[in-house]
């Protein structure tokens, strides 16, 4: 600031500022609004209130004491059902397509005399990891995100936030966290990006740090598998599938309760000093724009998340293949590590292989079950080409899984640290190493604590 004029101007500004009364900002905003009103009054005119009355009628229904919550539950159930039911077939098709390609490519490599480890590393390692993540992740996201975006575009989602705010206000959070949580069912990374709709910094951080407690669709297969194998047989076979579904819903509800509880604690402890204010705009209902929906849900959400997942899944595939195919003595590296992790695993009602699978699966939770099966079966690549009965026999008879193992694995899957994509997203959204570390280690610690307690009192 060498310019003497600039110094003088700044000094003058400081002097003048001292003479301002506190209300000048209010006056400024008021005059801006008055001017905007004047221009709007000249440039636009309203013809009737029919549209507005229509909106009001819908609003009264969707926020009514009787219909509000049931409508919401029904719409969300439809979205989930469409996602789960619709994604099965394309997932299976993608997987068989990718794995067929993998076989062909590996055969070509072998024919050209490539050493087995080059073929294995590239095709059975890196490519298989990628293929797995894409085929599990892509179809549900392609269905879930557009459906969700339709609700968003309609203007319905803010009403959900409005209806559910009473729950979140008690937890020191924002009603819009209901939306970011719902988004988290699709993908936690996308859920964290969607917290941008929360305009209050403290409540936004709460939503970012707790989004991980709703299971994303990468974790649902694990939950469904465990519920089917372990909880289903506990009840008469007629209601087995209902019991299994109920268990998954129960786990989700535990996740919601944990979210609220952790939000309550966070907003009263580490986040106390962050800025906060509650306002929620309820925009008018609109006809959804199909092109815009496709653009936001496919480009902004699906491809964005998928690209980050691909970046992390490829190296994970490589690591898995290396661990399964490097032998020290007669035993693979994977076995060595899982044996070393066994004491820790047993302390929380799991075992070393499960922990290893979760360490390898940090890049993407979709590969937990395939990795587990790979290590248990001693094969050299990820696999789930195994029937449910075989999986059950493998887990229960050969590796001593009990109901406790299943319950704790479900809890661990629900609570443990977010995947790498989510961690990167957390950093990009907060630009703070501190909150990224908290958001990563806090769930991990909670997962260990809860599973340890359950294992101790079992």
């Amino acid at each position, binding site marked *: 600031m060498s310019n003497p004029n600039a110094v003088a101007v700044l000094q003058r500004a400081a002097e003048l500022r001292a003479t301002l009364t506190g209300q000048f900002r209010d006056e400024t905003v008021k005059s801006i609004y008055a001017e905007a009103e004047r221009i709007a009054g000249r440039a636009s005119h309203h013809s009737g209130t029919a549209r507005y009355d229509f909106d009001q009628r819908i609003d009264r229904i969707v926020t009514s004491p009787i219909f509000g919550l049931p409508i919401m539950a029904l719409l969300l159930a439809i979205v989930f059902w469409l996602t789960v039911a619709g994604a099965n077939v394309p997932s299976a098709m993608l997987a068989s397509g990718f794995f067929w390609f993998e076989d062909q490519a590996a055969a070509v490599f072998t024919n050209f005399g490539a050493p087995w480890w080059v073929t294995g590393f590239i095709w059975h390692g890196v490519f298989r990891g990628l293929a797995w993540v894409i085929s599990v992740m892509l179809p549900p996201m392609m269905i879930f995100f557009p459906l969700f975006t339709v609700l968003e575009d309609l203007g319905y989602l803010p009403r959900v936030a409005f*209806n559910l705010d*009473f729950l979140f206000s008690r937890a020191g959070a924002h009603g819009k966290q209901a939306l970011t949580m719902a988004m988290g069912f699709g993908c936690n990374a996308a859920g964290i990006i969607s917290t941008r709709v929360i305009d209050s910094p403290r409540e936004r951080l709460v939503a970012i740090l707790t989004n991980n407690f709703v299971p994303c669709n990468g974790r649902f297969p694990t939950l469904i598998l465990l519920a089917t194998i372990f909880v289903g047989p506990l009840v008469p076979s007629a209601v087995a599938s209902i019991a299994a579904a109920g268990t998954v819903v129960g786990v989700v509800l535990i996740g919601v309760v944990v979210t609220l509880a952790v939000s309550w604690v966070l907003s009263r402890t580490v986040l*106390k000093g962050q*800025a906060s204010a509650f306002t929620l*705009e309820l925009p008018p209902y609109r006809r959804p724009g199909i092109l815009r929906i496709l653009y936001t849900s496919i480009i902004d959400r699906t491809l964005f998340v998928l690209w980050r997942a691909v970046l992390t899944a490829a190296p994970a595939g490589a690591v898995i293949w290396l661990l399964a195919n490097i032998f020290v003595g007669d035993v693979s590296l994977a076995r*060595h590590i899982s*044996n070393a992790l066994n004491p820790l695993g047993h302390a929380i009602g799991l075992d070393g292989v499960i922990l290893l699978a979760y360490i390898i699966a940090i890049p993407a939770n979709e590969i937990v079950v395939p990795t587990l099966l790979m290590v248990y079966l001693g094969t050299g690549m990820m696999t789930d080409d195994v029937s449910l009965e075989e999986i059950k026999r493998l887990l229960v008879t050969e590796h001593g899984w009990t109901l406790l193992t299943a319950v704790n694995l479900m809890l661990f899957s629900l609570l443990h640290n977010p995947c790498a994509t989510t961690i990167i997203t957390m950093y990009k959204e907060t630009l703070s190493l501190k909150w990224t570390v908290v958001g990563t280690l806090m769930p991990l610690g909670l997962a260990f604590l809860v599973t340890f307690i359950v294992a101790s009192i079992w």
Partner: protein
Amino acid sequence: MGPLLTTVAIGATIFGLFLALSWASRRRASQSRHRLEDALKHLFDLEYRGRHGSLASLTGALRVRDRAALDLVKRMQTQGLLVARGAEFDLTPEGERLALQVIRAHRLLERYFADEARLPLPQVHAAAERGEHHLSPDAADRLSASLGHPSVDPHGDPIPTREGFVPPAAGTPATAWPIDRLARIVHLEDEPPISYAQLVAAGIEVGQMIRIIDSSPERMVLTDGENEFRLAPAVAANIFLENAPQAPALAGALRLAELSTGQAAEILGLDDRCQGYSRRRLMDLGFTEGATIRAALTTFAGDPRAYEIRGTLVALRSEQASQVLVQPLEKAS
């Protein structure tokens, strides 16, 4: 347990110990800096009120033993921050400059915690007390700019400028204010915390309009028009008053939260207690004086409610809605 795990465990233990040791030594260094800054603040505070510091006042304010206070005074003398005249201590100009930096940081942080983070007022002082030692003068400038260069902290204490200018303390203690003359509270002394907590608990706030109804050596009775506050004179002496500006016509005013659903009203303004981020948000959404507002929707839980303003629906929790003052309109329908 495998040898791998043992090696990892031993490694982690050694690393942990190393971290703990370096943390402890850093903590000791920063603690002694904090204590020095607290001493500067204390001495400046006394000088500002025309008194002088002493060893006794230091040990009391910092809650340290005589030995530690003596060491501190010696250190401040060698650093040229303090001169001793007999038993009395005075700050050197350099000492004053540093003290003002700490005070500026403290009061700006109080503003931040009260306005932006919306901490309850009794917690604001303690939070700023911790933060003041970590805010560099440049960071304080940035904070001041982001807060819109406030001139007083939430208790009404003036915030020193960057150049170190402190406006003189404003207001007359309530104990010296004539009975029955309308006054505005400009400052609540936040030390000692016990009597400040008592004022806050009674619901007394900076910016409130009050009148003194009765004053005796045992008891002072104040009123804000609705509630009566009975205070010991020693506590009331911590309230500082100024002549009230013309009271705005707020007769018949309601808080927005009190409006019944479907009723329309004209906005009179925002409560003075609503500051910082919340105030900016409400202003941005068009909650300005003269705007028409209608309570449109309510959830089954009763809170939040949605209000129709300037052609849009905005939901507010009752906590926010009670900071908007409105004048109900005659029902048109």
